């Protein structure tokens, strides 16, 4: 595919400060576009919020901040793991890279489990998708993010598939997939800030 496939040694990359985009530049178009779409969801949320501040503040009090913090930490760890995976793969340490890819999946699953538990907790105390405006946004944003996360597992599957056999190991694909995963994390941090932290 590109010269990245051969894996440029890190010291060589340092000597030549060329413009470097990790993975397919195409994935960055996705990141940009998806960020714009999410920004528009956030704008809608914030505008609705200004029209009914009391309701939003009351409803927010029903959210368990511990779940939010735990989820954020899990995804930050997963991002760290996938970054290590890319690093290891660049250096040709494919066993380590594979381990880090599985570690990323582990943190992703921890996030998913905690997310589902949080949903169950909210529904048990009577806060559902149709309860009020805040919970519409809460369930919508967390669910659409969760869909991105589920696609992320497919993407991480591609990473594992690439790293598994010496016949494949496309560094470009590994980095493209890692970029996707970072986006999932990045979007969650924004959602966390808007739903749990903003008062």
């Amino acid at each position, binding site marked *: 595919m590109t010269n990245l496939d051969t894996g440029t040694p890190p010291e060589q990359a340092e000597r030549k400060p060329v413009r470097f985009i990790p993975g397919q530049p*195409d*994935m960055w178009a996705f990141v940009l*576009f998806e960020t714009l779409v999410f920004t528009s969801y956030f704008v809608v949320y914030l505008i609705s919020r200004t029209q009914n501040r009391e309701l939003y503040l009351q409803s927010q009090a029903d959210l368990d901040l511990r779940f939010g913090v735990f989820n954020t930490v899990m995804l930050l760890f997963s991002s760290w793991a996938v970054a290590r995976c890319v690093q290891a793969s660049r250096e040709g340490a494919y066993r380590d890279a594979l381990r880090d890819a599985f570690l990323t999946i582990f943190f992703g699953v921890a996030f998913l489990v905690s997310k589902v538990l949080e949903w169950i907790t909210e529904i048990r105390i009577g806060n559902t998708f*149709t309860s009020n405006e805040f919970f519409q946004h809460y369930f919508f944003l967390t669910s659409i993010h969760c*869909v991105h996360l589920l696609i992320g597992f497919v993407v991480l599957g591609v990473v594992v598939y690439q790293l598994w056999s010496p016949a494949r190991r496309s560094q470009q694909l590994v980095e493209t997939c890692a970029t996707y995963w970072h986006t999932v994390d990045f979007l969650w941090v924004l959602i966390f800030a808007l739903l749990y932290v903003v008062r």
Partner: protein
Amino acid sequence: MSTQTGSLASRFVWNFRHNPKRELWFAWWVIVVFYQLYGLLFFVVTRVQPPPSPGWDTPTVVQWFGDHHLGILAGFGVVFLITGMTAPINALLAYSMRRMSVSPIFGYSYLIIYSLSAVPGMLVMAIAMTVGALRPDRDPALIQWLYDFAFLSFSGTMGVFMIGSLVWMAAVLIDKNRVFPKWFGYLNLCNALTEVVVAPAWIFRRGVFAWNGAIAWWINMVVFVVYTAVFIVLLRKMIEREDFGTGELPDLPPKAQRKQSSSVGAVQ
């Protein structure tokens, strides 16, 4: 050659008789004309887009039908005429996938699923709307029933469009013939994800998730318009690059060279 020297009419006739890409260009122009007409008919003539509120009471809905009586009947009359234009459109979209290095399953799936989307997305809506508008003295409850039926059938195409986008995405990402750039594959994913967002329209009658809501309709429509504009341009590029082979699609020669041998002469 006669193609470069003749009048516009004679060049058109020459292309019509000899250009090996004439069917592709025909289908492409159908796409351009169809979407212009679609915008005009749905947004201006019938005023069913942007959609009116699902939260209205029966008298307001009857009033709405009364206000748009002529527009609905005339506009959807034309819609019935042009729905068939979706056939060459879907054919060209499927052709793009048949030109890829991927299994024919992709093209066939796409063809079938998008042919299905024209039924609920255009025809059922058009029928329900014209039935509602035809007799203004009909029982108001029935008119409201038709109103809901029309707009829900329109929103109901979302799943079809979602799967269609995912099929195209997979084909573009796997393809080795470079028919489309990879970012278009990812853009398909963006479009598919905004189709998911329409789903709450089945639950809510007001707010941002209703069928006329900021998230379920406006954002979704903006993404769809961008996506459609992008694939129309990319299909044009594909036709220009088409060499009727089975391998990698060649890049276009630099612009200066292309001017010398006009798009038609280059083919021979």
